[in-house]
């Protein structure tokens, strides 16, 4: 098989986080030496802290107001970031390329109508016929279009409508694992020659009180504003959710070179699994995944972008494992600067790794004082995401620019 396999390269980066809009804004903030200050909001959802959406002009990537109105922010953000990635790859409005382009989107669900849900909950306290109440209120209060703004596969649907990407459209679900599977699937298809170019990524909006419930059901959210991400004992201090839209254009190297595209990095391998995390099982699995991904021993030429969620013990275990597996490799604590973006976590980590590999400059620490400074631009990047409930993924990327 190996001889026939295609190299997979990254040729487009579309990234929106609390730090800003676009690849350039992130490069400026992260490759300039000093660590940027995190952009957080600890008031809107107190006692919780979120990394909010930056100032953004939706019209720049979603020109029709009618399209914007059909979506809520989660889908808007994804469509926007997808547009940035296409632009960056030089494929935006290339109708032929987009019509043949595959698409894999990692998605959760869209925004609930908080007012309607609240109305129903409040009424339910006064009535015994709750199911009848539900029918009454849902029939009269739900906006028909909100259903489409909530449907998981309609982020991809809107990308097709707005950017004309129609070669294929697949939506993967399952929290952090969805982002891992999306990248893994795209990589496997291109490597096997089943696809030549693929738009892949996801979006997550943290400024949603309904989504805070997802993590707080497991009491995972950090409740102390301004708390450093890492504690002195090596545990993390809880999850702060982070808004992120992260899409990549992946291509076979042949396809990219034939059209003279800039190559940010080569995506060498994606290894993923799940299973029991009891008694060292997680660490054993991570070690196997690192081997499967062809991870080198740690060194200064390597950078590790860790997607550790912020769950205290789980993050501590990941950090300990990475420290032992990759000694002397500087680590970047993605969630310290960007928060946890669930489905978008792994794609965001890959986008950040690509910036670092392409830049020719060292990547600033994300958690100053904890993340070691890097002396040089890395030649290899390892990106990890360990899902807050399940699912683990490790990717290896290599610098292509000289």
């Amino acid at each position, binding site marked *: 098989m190996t001889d026939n396999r295609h190299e997979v390269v990254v040729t487009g980066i579309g990234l929106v986080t609390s730090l800003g809009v676009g690849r350039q804004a992130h490069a400026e903030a992260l490759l300039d030496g000093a660590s940027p200050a995190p952009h957080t909001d600890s008031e809107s959802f107190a006692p919780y802290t979120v990394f909010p959406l930056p100032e953004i002009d939706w019209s720049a990537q979603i020109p029709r107001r009618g399209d914007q109105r059909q979506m809520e922010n989660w889908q808007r953000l994804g469509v926007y970031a997808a547009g940035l990635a296409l632009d960056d790859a030089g494929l935006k409005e290339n109708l032929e390329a987009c019509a043949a382009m595959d698409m894999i989107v990692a998605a959760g669900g869209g925004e609930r109508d908080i007012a309607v849900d609240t109305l129903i909950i409040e009424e339910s306290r006064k009535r015994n016929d709750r199911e009848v109440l539900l029918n009454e209120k849902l029939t009269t209060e739900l906006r028909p279009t909100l*259903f489409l703004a909530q449907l998981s596969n309609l982020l991809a649907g809107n990308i*097709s409508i707005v950017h004309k990407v129609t070669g294929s*459209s697949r939506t993967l*679900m399952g929290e952090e694992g969805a982002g891992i599977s999306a990248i893994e699937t795209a990589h496997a298809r291109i490597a096997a020659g089943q696809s030549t170019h693929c738009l892949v990524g996801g979006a997550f909006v943290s400024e949603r009180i309904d989504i805070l419930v997802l993590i707080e059901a497991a009491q995972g959210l950090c409740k102390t504003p301004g708390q450093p991400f890492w504690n002195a004992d090596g545990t993390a201090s809880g999850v702060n959710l982070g808004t992120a839209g992260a899409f990549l254009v992946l291509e076979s190297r042949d396809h990219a070179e034939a059209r003279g595209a800039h190559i940010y990095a080569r995506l060498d391998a994606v290894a993923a699994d799940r299973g029991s995390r009891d008694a060292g099982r997680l660490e054993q699995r991570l070690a196997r995944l690192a081997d499967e991904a062809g991870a080198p021993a740690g060194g200064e030429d390597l950078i590790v972008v860790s997607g550790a969620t912020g769950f205290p013990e789980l993050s501590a275990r990941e950090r300990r494992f990475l420290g032992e597996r990759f000694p002397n490799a500087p680590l970047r604590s993605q969630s310290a600067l960007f928060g946890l973006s669930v489905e978008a976590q792994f794609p965001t980590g890959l986008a950040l790794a690509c910036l670092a590999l392409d830049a020719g400059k060292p990547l600033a620490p994300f958690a100053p004082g904890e993340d070691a400074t890097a002396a040089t631009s890395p030649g290899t990047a390892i990106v990890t995401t360990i899902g807050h409930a399940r699912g683990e993924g490790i990717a290896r990327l290599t610098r292509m620019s000289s």
Partner: protein
Amino acid sequence: MSKAAYTDHLGRPLVAVTGMGVVSSLGQGVSDNWAALTAGRSGIHAITRFPADTLSTRICGTVDFIDIPVPNAVERSFAFARETTREALAQAGLSGEFGGPLFLAAPPIEPEWSARFELGDRVSPEDMTGNAYQEFLAVLRAKADPAFHEAILFGSISERLADMFGTRGLPVTLSTACASGTTAIQLGVEAIRQGRTDRALTVATDGSVSAEALIRFALLSALSTNNDAPEKASRPFTKDRDGFVIAEGAATLVLESLEAALARGARIHGIISGCGEKADDFHRTRSSPGGAPAIATIRAALDDAGLDADAIGYINAHGTSTPENDKMEYLALSSVFGERMPDVPVSSNKSMIGHTLTAAGAVEAVFSLLTMQHGVLPPTINYDNPDPAIPLDVVPNVKRDAQVTSVLSNSFGFGGQNACLVMTAEPA
């Protein structure tokens, strides 16, 4: 058998189906479903899961005969998938660790209202802020709720299936709306063709019918309101069709490379010869007026199979019974099949089982394979008022004996999702 007999027209490994399992409103298991389907029986009934007397649609094809510990969409979807997977693995003669990847089509799940009400009841009066979610957060800060957490995670169904059946790697959970079941099969086929596995477990399940799900589709005017005779409500290709009937079900297909399957002496139920897809960029719920994406999808599936349209002997239609779908599907089919169209039988399983949404593509793939195996075409029932604009041989009302060796199965969904499969009988 020579090496070439195990590969297709592009030199890729042929992908065989060695085990099938199915659940629908018609019953549990392949044989009960096939008996009911070929008898022209409808599984559509009045809604009993929740009060529906004030709703415009009061009928459904829910599956209410499988026990679940807690009435929510995750438990129900998991239970259906567990049952169909057990059946499929038993049929495939596989026990112990499955050892290949899992591709699961599962419904996008929202918390149940019963769970929201329960959270709402736990709010202490001083925490009542006038925002239900602030109140829920206060409840959860005081006491975590692991069961609720698990019930709202999209990854929880595949997790349990992976543990139960010993699949390998990170399972893929997917949603391509009403094409999801087809996409799950397609991912399994791709994995085997990539050479990264000899076998894949492809499962599609949907146990998500609730008042809110029904009302949401009703608000989009997608559902039939023929409430008075539920079994007659789903009327694909008729003039008075007025929407689909929301339904539940699941199907599992065990896929193996033909070579590996034969090497272990497995029985081959058919070959997944071709998969095609093409997204539609026209509208969120409506198809391109010319049907171009659906046409391209059908052609892509035929090309992938290396077959000409002339080779197809029967079409398992998407056939939802909505005014829009059936018209567009006819347009697409007749564009591809041309003058031969009147001679190709096309039937809709949804006339009997309703629209099983996420599960539909896989449920209908199982029925397509059974069609070839038994030499019997299941009918389109309730076909008593043909739409003259859709002149198809829909196998009206009564099954028909016919030996077919190649079947096309269509799936078209909201969000511009189109996916088709070509299945063929076991190569001689």
